[in-house]
């Protein structure tokens, strides 16, 4: 503990003499290695290869091997770039994408290249993105094996495309490139959430995710355009230099310019959309309709952290505002999101959704970290969260995979004790203690950086920082509670389960041909089985072998099938990585001398920022300037407090949900999977509140009533107007001559002589006119 304290002290003691929130100048980028461009090319190539496999009707696991190889190579490249990196930003350019020129002056040309910008933030993100992508591709190799063939190719094509998009997002050297990746990850998320496209819920969730993201994207786009208009460029390097100079491109004082708070707010909207922050968050829980590896990679570890990355990338702009308006908004959005999602998690039963909301909540922590002026904390939390949340998701995925898609925590119990699931249980435990912030875990350190900074940041800089800090602390406790609630209910306790009825299972061929889904459900029935440690029939390792057309669901019982080697390897890897992630906190940072490796990486990036918690002078000044935590220096106290809060949460969880007699310390009272008397009583106590939380506080319904339904009604009105009024006017213009013609119609008798009379009379008339007018 002393060592840790020392570490903290060094963190607190360091800092430059610069003004509190003036961004340190970012050096002009050097020439980067063009090898970095391979990070963009390889996944794209792999995606294209998967397309080729699909076209050639490949029915093997080749797409998976290709993907793992390509992504592994990417990770290697990222690692190599990191090892060869000199700490200075660098750029490498492939070719022009959109570049326009309409004058010679400043801001009269628009350039967006396919190019990469490498700095600490980029490398940090790339390392965990490619690393996790490789691991999860490995996991998917087995997880998706029920769908070998076209679907398999589709899955891995989208997967690779996602990595490409994420790379473009993170590594792009301009905002438009970021936008490319931004929309690209949205697309892949759409494709992968909707992977089980026959399921209406999946399709709806995919659509919702894409559209919600698009709303945020509009903010991002407006931000990009405003940036261009104000600064005359969207490339990072010149942009950062201009911001550092404190002037806009037209020479106005940046600090008093509208853009200094306006543009960050627009970007913040974009970030909220992508990272599922408050009011935009509803798509993320629904996104759990996708295959679990996708949830792990995209909707927990990487894509959703793009918002954090964006703010980190543009931190100079965010911090250029003397009033820090945008950061206050970001901080409060994060805090509210974290708290809001945590309350929902405590009530719901779907373990995958618990993980989804937990991701939202943790993203809230990251945003709060960004907003509360500790980009290091945010990035560190992103980093650790990526690993432990991936571990948790992969663990949940293994359960899902093994129990026919069962996700209800009231129908699963003691999974850890079932044959083949031990590793899963351990991994879940590791993930859970990380998430709960149990001391000495990676999650503990990263969360503490944020919490400590939250209490340190003065309210004069970030509006209501102290209140935010208290709320975050409360949320940390709730996090510990809901995490262990899930763990204690599902993984320990009496061994029981009800298998699910998921499409993933059905695709395994377990239900005989000719029996419809509904019939099969009816036969299979509920309460079908208390599974009991069956021998593995051998279909754990090869699912194709498990396809038995003669399988009769009425006579044969369901066997949970534990994960095979590749899933286990992936889970194990993730688990190890999430343990090891704690270690980076003790590595010597490249910049400064505290905060660990991540701090160094962040310090060598655009997000480099002298947090106000760092010492700027004597102790008196320090005390006067900084907030306190119940009168103590928060840096010192926070370890104990947050660890305590976490433990309280875990204790409550054990008290309410712990299985009876299993744990000697806490006498739990849960007797079976579904029955936990204390918890149920508590839930009943809160009655309507619980119900509201279980229904996600009806936010979807509110959106539906406030936005979707009115729009839909409006669209119908427009449609009717279009046909009635707009087209009606046109038709009226056509109808008037028609009416006139109709009135003249009887004159056409059809009898030949009728016309002849007219002709003769007309001739006479003309002659009369000629005679009278011309010849007289």
């Amino acid at each position: 503990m002393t060592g840790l304290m020392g570490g903290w002290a060094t963190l607190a003691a360091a800092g430059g003499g610069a003004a509190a929130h003036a961004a340190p100048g970012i050096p002009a980028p050097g020439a980067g290695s063009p090898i970095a461009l391979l990070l963009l090319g390889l996944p794209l190539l792999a995606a294209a290869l998967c397309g080729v496999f699909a076209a050639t009707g490949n029915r093997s696991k080749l797409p998976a091997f290709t993907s793992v190889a390509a992504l592994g190579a990417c990770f290697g490249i990222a690692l190599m770039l990191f090892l060869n990196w000199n700490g200075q930003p660098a750029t490498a350019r492939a070719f022009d994408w959109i570049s326009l020129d309409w004058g010679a002056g400043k801001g009269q040309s628009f350039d967006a290249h396919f190019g990469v910008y490498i700095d600490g933030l980029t490398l940090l993100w790339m390392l965990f993105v490619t690393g996790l992508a490789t691991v999860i591709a490995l996991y998917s190799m087995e997880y998706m094996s029920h769908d070998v063939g076209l679907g398999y190719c589709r899955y891995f094509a989208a997967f690779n495309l996602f990595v490409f998009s994420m790379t473009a997002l993170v590594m792009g050297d301009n905002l438009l490139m970021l936008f490319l990746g931004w929309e690209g990850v949205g697309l892949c998320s759409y494709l992968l959430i909707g992977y089980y496209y026959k399921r209406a819920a999946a399709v709806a969730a995919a659509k919702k995710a894409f559209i919600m993201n698009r709303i945020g994207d509009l903010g991002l786009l407006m931000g990009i355009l405003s940036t261009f208009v104000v600064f005359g460029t969207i490339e990072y390097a010149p942009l950062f230099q201009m911001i550092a100079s404190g002037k806009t491109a037209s020479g106005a004082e940046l600090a008093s310019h509208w853009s200094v708070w306006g543009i960050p707010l627009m970007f913040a909207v974009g970030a909220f959309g992508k990272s599922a922050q408050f009011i935009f968050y509803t798509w993320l829980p629904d996104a759990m309709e996708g295959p679990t590896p996708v949830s792990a990679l995209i909707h927990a570890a990487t894509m959703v952290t793009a918002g954090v990355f964006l703010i980190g990338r543009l931190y100079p702009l965010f911090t250029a505002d003397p009033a820090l308006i945008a950061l206050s908004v970001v901080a409060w959005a994060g805090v509210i999101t974290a708290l809001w999602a945590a309350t929902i998690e405590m009530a719901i039963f779907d373990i995958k959704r618990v993980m989804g909301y937990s991701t939202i909540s943790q993203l809230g922590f990251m945003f709060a970290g960004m907003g509360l002026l500790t980009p290091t904390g945010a990035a560190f939390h992103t980093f650790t969260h990526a690993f432990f949340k991936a571990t948790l998701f992969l663990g949940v995925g293994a359960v899902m995979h093994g129990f026919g898609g069962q996700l209800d925590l009231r129908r699963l119990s003691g999974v850890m004790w079932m044959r083949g699931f031990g590793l899963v249980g351990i991994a879940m435990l590791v993930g859970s203690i990380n998430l709960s912030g149990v001391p000495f875990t990676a999650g503990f350190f990263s969360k503490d950086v944020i919490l400590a900074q939250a209490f340190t940041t003065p309210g004069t800089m970030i509006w209501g920082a102290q209140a935010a800090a208290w709320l975050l602390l409360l949320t940390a406790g709730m996090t510990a509670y809901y995490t262990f609630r899930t763990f204690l209910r599902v993984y320990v306790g009496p061994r029981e389960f009800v298998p699910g009825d998921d499409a993933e299972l059905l695709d395994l061929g377990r239900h005989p041909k000719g029996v419809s889904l509904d019939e099969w459900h009816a036969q299979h029935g509920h309460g079908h089985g208390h599974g009991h440690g069956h021998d593995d029939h051998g279909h754990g390792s090869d699912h194709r072998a498990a396809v038995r057309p003669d399988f009769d669901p009425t006579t044969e019982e369901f066997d949970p099938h534990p994960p095979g080697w590749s899933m286990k390897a992936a889970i194990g890897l993730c688990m190890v990585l999430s343990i090891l992630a704690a270690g980076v906190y003790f590595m010597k940072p490249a910049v400064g001398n505290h905060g660990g490796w991540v701090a160094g990486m962040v310090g060598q990036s655009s997000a480099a920022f002298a947090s106000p918690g760092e010492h700027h002078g004597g102790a008196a000044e320090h005390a006067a300037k900084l907030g306190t935590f119940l009168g103590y220096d928060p840096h010192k106290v926070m370890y104990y407090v947050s660890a305590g809060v976490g433990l309280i949460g875990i204790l409550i969880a054990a008290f309410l949900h712990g299985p009876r007699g299993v744990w000697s310390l806490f006498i739990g009272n849960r007797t079976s999977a579904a029955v936990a008397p204390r918890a149920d009583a508590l839930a009943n106590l809160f009655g309507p509140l619980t119900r509201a939380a279980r229904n996600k506080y009806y936010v979807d319904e509110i959106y539906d009533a406030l936005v979707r339904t009115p729009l839909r009604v409006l669209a119908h009105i427009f449609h009717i107007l279009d046909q009635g009024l707009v087209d009606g006017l046109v038709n009226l213009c056509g109808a008037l001559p028609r009416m006139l013609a109709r009135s003249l119609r009887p004159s056409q008798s059809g009898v030949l002589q009728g016309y002849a009379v007219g002709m003769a009379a007309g001739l006479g008339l003309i002659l009369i006119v000629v005679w009278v007018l011309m010849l007289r």
Partner: protein
Amino acid sequence: MEAIIHPIVVYAGLAVGAVGVAMAMPRPRVSPQVIGALLAAVGFGVIFLFLGLRAGRDNPGVFFYLFSLIGLGSALRVITHPRPVYAALYFILTILSSSALYLLMQAEFMAFALIIIYAGAILITYLFVIMLATQAPTEEQVEALSEYDAFSREPVVATAVGFILLGVLTGVMARGIQEIRPASGEGQKQAALERMPGKIIESLRSAGAFEVFLEPTKQDLTNAQQALVNWTRGEVSLRLRPDGGRRLAKAVERPEFAALFGGADPARAAADNLATASDADVVVRLPSSVKMTNIEGIGWDLIAKHPMALELAGVILLMAMLGAVVLARKQIEIGEAEKAQAAAGRAGGVGIGGGGVV
């Protein structure tokens, strides 16, 4: 208009004629055709009478009145006769009288062409078709007429329209022709002769002039056009044969040759002049018999001035022939029931028609 005929007379005459024509139209019950015809004749007669009175010495003569009245009378009969065959026959009479009018106007070729083509060919075709399309009356209904032949359609309105048109036409024409002047002299009409060297040379040859003047070589014939420069004065310049002077001197003694030079004296003078200059041109006057006939004139006009129209007319005729063949060949697929229905409709409608074939 007063210069030609007083308008009141014209309109009064036309009004009477109109009443007459209207009365003469075939009607179902009473059709006072005779009275109508008489009235019409009176109307037109009055107009012709006044026209003749005013014309004085320009009066076109009795044949004009005769044929005009025959033509108009038979035309009236064409439009009033309830039997198509008779109508067609009366129309032949109209054609005959109008060809007589052509003759009066010295259009001999057209007059006979009209009779041959119109009366001879076209009207006969009409008669055939009439006979083809009209059922012969059966034994019991000798006088049965088709309903559509028996009743005319809106006779009063049609007559009014027709006569208003006629009134306006006469008025306009009367006003219009005061502005135009007729061509003077025969020359205009004969102008085409200029371009007919063969005709000239033929006439000279028939007068025996070639013996004196020209070697009848091909070259001369082609040059003749140049030679005939002064045709409008009735003169033609010709080149003498080598020994022409001598021959001319001898020839002038013959009276018909002297006429060519406008008398014996000018001829002798010419002969004297030319006796020495053997290859000089002489100017001779064309013989009075050199005139284009009507048929030559039309032929020349047709070929020289309207070749394109002639070709087009040929094409039209060809097309008409083809069209007629195609149309008449077409078999109408008509169901028996439909036919019966059509017949019943007609029979039920009026009850007179001889539609009971089916």
